[in-house]
Structure formats: structure tokens, C-alpha cells
């Protein structure tokens, strides 16, 4: 499989400030790639360089084999973009907007079908300035698909939307992937990235601090899975003696790390055999969000070098 996006040593500086500081990554064609990071980390700068909207200061960038800055016109026929906080002409109807884009790209899209696809058909004849935030984003999504793009860049497409609108945009992203299109997604919502993305990269202070599949990142940077049970501190000592595990006891809760398959079963069996009172057990494992918060926090504390 070839790469839709290839980035090597990409830099973008504003005076002395490096907004993007020598980053490398690739996005294989047909995958959903989520680019994550806190506000001001360099996400939007990077995605705008990839879209050909911003000139890079250094490094190499290829999107579908093209240089986005010097070959933007050619590239724009093959990519679809929803910028952050998509805005359009106030008085245009969604149906007209799609016809307009169709003419510009020399395509003849079916506005009804595209609007149906993003769930905006009932607003086909409503002025843009009367649409809600979610409906505007949906029109942005529909417009980004007019030219039948191979790569879709979605810059925070669900920010500020209600849960239902977010879910309907997720559904479209899944469809895009199933059609073999590459999706480059930036988002604040870690849960969104975990649900949708094949590959994730986390950028902070202009540098990539973690990259890989969500499960790889969690496995590498997250804490082990653990079992929590409510009971007396004596349970902790009992389990240490019986199973040799080091548990943490606090606030009437005993937390036991699970490192191997079958650990949970062994712990529960031992608990039952202890004769001590216990109740309410639960297993927990880190989410991408836990890892993200921990990584970004540790980097800010100077513990992690990018």
C-alpha cells in the first residue's frame, strides 16, 4: 500500500518560534489518521501545510506524490478539505453551494444525494446563515466530497457539535474509509480518535510525542490494566502474601495491577478464599485520553523529551 501523505523533517517557524519542529510521519492510503494535540500544539499549522494553504519553512511534504505549495492546483482536484470552523457565503443554499463547487471542479454532483449522505437534505433550500453549527459543518463535509477526493482533510470537524451531530459525522468518516479514501483528521476528542483512527500521532509544542495505532500507544505509554475492589486494607496484605502482587490501598479501595491473562480470575478466586469482606469489583484500563493527558502533562513537567 502506498502512502497518501509523507512528511519528513517538516518545520514551520514564525520568527524565533517553531510552530512545527522537524516532524516526520506517513499516512498510508485508505486509512483514517488522527492528528492530536492540545491547543496551539501545531495541528492546524501542519494540516494547512498539507492542504497547500500555508508555506512550510523547511522539510519535505508530499500529498498523493505532490508538493502541496507548488502543485496546489493539481492537488486540490484530488483532496477534500473542511477547515476548522467552516464558513461560507451567508445567503447561499446548500444545494446551490454543491452545484457551485461542481462547476468549479468541472463535475456534475447530485446535490440531493450528497446532502442525504451527510444528513442535510432537509436543509437543501435554507440560507447558510440560518443553519446551526452542526449543519454548517455538514455542508462543509458535503462540499469537501464534491470532487470525489482521494484524501479528505477534516480539521476538528466535530468541535462544538452536539453528540448526535458528532455521531452522524463519525458515520460519514467510517463510510469514507470503507470507500477506500484516506482521512486525515485533527480533533480534540480523544474518544473520537480512538473510535475512528487506524493510526494516531500526538503533537505537542510542535513535536510528535507519540505515534502508532491507538492500542499500540496505550500499550506503550499507558498504565497496565487493573482490578479495583472495595474492602479493608487487610485485603491488600492478603493478596501480596497469597499471589505476590503489590496492590495500592486507599479510601477503602484496593487496586491490583493485572499483567497477564488470567490475573483477574486468580485475584477474584483469592479474594473469595480470603474470608475478608469485599464488594464491588471493577477492571479498568487506560484510554487514549488517559495516555494523552499523562504524556502531555509529563512533557509540560519536563519529564518526557520529544
Amino acid at each position: 500500500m502506498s502512502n497518501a501523505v509523507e512528511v519528513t523533517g517538516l518545520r514551520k517557524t514564525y520568527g524565533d518560534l517553531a510552530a512545527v519542529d522537524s516532524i516526520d510521519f506517513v499516512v498510508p492510503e485508505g486509512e483514517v489518521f488522527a492528528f492530536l494535540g492540545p491547543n496551539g500544539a501545531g495541528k492546524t499549522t501542519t494540516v494547512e501545510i498539507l492542504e497547500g494553504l500555508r508555506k512550510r519553512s523547511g522539510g519535505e511534504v508530499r500529498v498523493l506524490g505532490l508538493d502541496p505549495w507548488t502543485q496546489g492546483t493539481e492537488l486540490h482536484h484530488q483532496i477534500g478539505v473542511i477547515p476548522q470552523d467552516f464558513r461560507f457565503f451567508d445567503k447561499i443554499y446548500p444545494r446551490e453551494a454543491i452545484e457551485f463547487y461542481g462547476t468549479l471542479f468541472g463535475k456534475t454532483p447530485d446535490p440531493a444525494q450528497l446532502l442525504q449522505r451527510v444528513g442535510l437534505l432537509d436543509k437543501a433550500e435554507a440560507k447558510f446563515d440560518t443553519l446551526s453549527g452542526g449543519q454548517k459543518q455538514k455542508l462543509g463535509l458535503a462540499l469537501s466530497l464534491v470532487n470525489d477526493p482521494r484524501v479528505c482533510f477534516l480539521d476538528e470537524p466535530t468541535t462544538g457539535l452536539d453528540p448526535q451531530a458528532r455521531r452522524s459525522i463519525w458515520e460519514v468518516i467510517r463510510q469514507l474509509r470503507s470507500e477506500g479514501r484516506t482521512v486525515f483528521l485533527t480533533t480534540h476528542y480523544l474518544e473520537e480518535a480512538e473510535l475512528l483512527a487506524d493510526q494516531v500521532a500526538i503533537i505537542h509544542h510542535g513535536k510528535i510525542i507519540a505515534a502508532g495505532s491507538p492500542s499500540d500507544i496505550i500499550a506503550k505509554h499507558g498504565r497496565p490494566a487493573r482490578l479495583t475492589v472495595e474492602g479493608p486494607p487487610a485485603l491488600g496484605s492478603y493478596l501480596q502474601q497469597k499471589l505476590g502482587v503489590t496492590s495500592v490501598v486507599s479510601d477503602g479501595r484496593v487496586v491490583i495491577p493485572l499483567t497477564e491473562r488470567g490475573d483477574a480470575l486468580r485475584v477474584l478466586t483469592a479474594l473469595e478464599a480470603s474470608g475478608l469482606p469485599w464488594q464491588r469489583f471493577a477492571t479498568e484500563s487506560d484510554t487514549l485520553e488517559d495516555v494523552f493527558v499523562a504524556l502531555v502533562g509529563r512533557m509540560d513537567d519536563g519529564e518526557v523529551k520529544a
Partner: protein
Amino acid sequence: MNPRRIGADFKVFARGYVRNPVALFFSLFFPIILVLLFGLIFNQPTTSVTLYAENLDPGSNISAQFLNALNQTGAVQVTVVGPAQLPGNESLAKYLADHSDPVGIVIPPDFGQDYLSHQPTNVTVYTNPEDAVSGGIAEAAVGAVSNEFNLQLSHGSPVVGVAVLPIASTIYKEIDYLVPGLIGFSILTSPMFAMVDISSTYKKDHLFRQLSLTPLTKDEWLASKIIWYVILSFISAAIMVGAGVALFHAHVTLSIYLVPFLVLGPFFFVSLGMLAGSIAKTPETAAVIGNVITFPMMFLSGTFFPVAAFPPYLQVFAHILPLYYVIDGMNKVMLFNNPGSAVADVAVLAAASVVVFVLAILAFKWRDE
């Protein structure tokens, strides 16, 4: 440039415009309001200046004849101020100052007797320098009547006479000059203000970046705006001519030779508005730059007052204003029916439009460096 893409962008822009009630009002009704307003201001009959007179020779027939002759000039309307209005020998000058009246005349004591006995006598005219026009009219009227009286006394008759006739065969009225001027005014203001606003709001709303992601190019985008404002200039010119003719019986010559001005005018000002908006960093600066360019042009290009009536240095300044060539050319075509003499205006406008169009394209950025 791709005509299909220009057409598509034009359609979107035109729809946005006609769906905006404020924009529509300004395009269709504002020209009528302009013609009505300025027509009423400039087209009213000239009123005479009120001249307050203190007659210190009230018993004389001659002083009464003198004041009567002043009234008959039609330039001044004499109002006699008697002792009742000037208590305690108050001077006429003080009366005029207290009542904010600009001009007055004092007929001296023994005026009639001195006149008949050929003794030199002086009437005094008071003027207020802040109202130079009224002062000038009063001075001229009093001077003319004094000459007449002097001639009569010496039994002379006038040798040199003055006949005032309008040029060409038509009698031009203020409104006839005003219609081309106001068409020029709307050719200037409508695209300039719109483009300065568009350039900053599109930047703020990231619409240029959005469009840069499509095959539409900057020159295609600007061309579609020019086409729209050319159409709008034809519509508003037609409305203004219609209003001028219907409301004030304006005389205008409509000919095919107006077309270059209705096309090149919007071409130039759409480009200039875009250039002004593009070099500004913020919407506020854009508005200031737009106003600095627009306002001098609005008043100094012959829109409301003929440039020939300006002081010489302002006439030189007017010649560097592009709107001057629009109005000058339209006057030559619409008023004097002399399109041949407007070729130079067309040439200046065409050259300036191309230069400003290219500069605007270079200055405005689709995307960020």
C-alpha cells in the same frame, strides 16, 4: 481565465446580493434618493439676498428711487430698518451683527439733495466676510444702481452692454450636470465600499482560503465582481436618468458612447477597492484606507460642483483623480453630445483600470505565506 468558473462565481455573488435587502435597497432606491435630494438642493430657483437698509434721508424722493431701483435688480430684496428697530441711535452694523444678517446699506443724510446738486455722496454697504456670496451680490447690485444714477445725472447712456447666453443651443439646468455627476458618484461608491468590506470580511471568515481550495483563481474571482458591478452601474445609471427626467425634466443624451464609462468605471473601482482592502491588515484599517481614497474623489471630481469652478491648484488635483475622467467623459457624452472629445478620458481610464487590476491581483492573497 475560465468563463465557466467566472459564471459560477458570478451567479453565487449575484444571488447573495439580491437576497440581501440592505444591499438591494442601496442599489435600487439609493440612486433615486440621491437624484431627488441633490435635485431639490441644486434645482431650486435662485432667491434674492435680503438687504437691510437704513435710510437717513427719508423725506427724499431720490433715496426712495434708489432703494426701489435696488429692488428691481432682482438680486436683492430691500427691507427698510426704521428708528423703531434701531433704538437709541443704534448703528445698522450692530443691528446686522445682532440679528446675524449678512448685508445692509446706509443711505446718508441729504442724499437726495447732494445728488441733485452734483455733490459727491457715499452710500455705505455692510457685508459679513463669512457670507461672501451675499456680500458680493449686494455689492454688485449697489454698484450697478449707483452707476445707473450717475449716468442719469450726466445724461449719458451705456455703451458696452453684456448679454449672457448659454453655450450650445440647449439651456442647461443644474440637474443636467447633476445626473452624470451622480452616476459617477454611484460608480465610485458602490464598488469601492463593497470591495473594501468584502476583502476584510472574506479574510476574517476564511472565505478566500476556502475558495483557494477550488480551481477558481483570484483573477476569475475579481472578474466576476467586476461583471456584477458593471451590470449594477448600468441599472443605477438607468434609474438615475429616469428619476432625473421624471422628477426634474433633466435633459440628457443617451448614447452607446456611455458604455465605456459604465464598464471602465466599475472595472477601475472594483480593482481599487480590492487593492485598498488587501493592503490593510485589519478591517478597521481597510475602512480608513477606503474612506481616505473615496471621500476626496467624491467631492473633487466634479460630482456635485463643476471642476472648472475650483481654484487652480484643486483643478490640478482633480485631474489626478480617476473619477474625474469618468464624470468628465460622461458630461461630454450626456450633456454636450460630443463623444469624440471623450476619447482621452476613455484612454486614461482603460490604462488605469488595467494597472490597478493587476496590482489588486498581486496584492490580495488567497493563502498565507
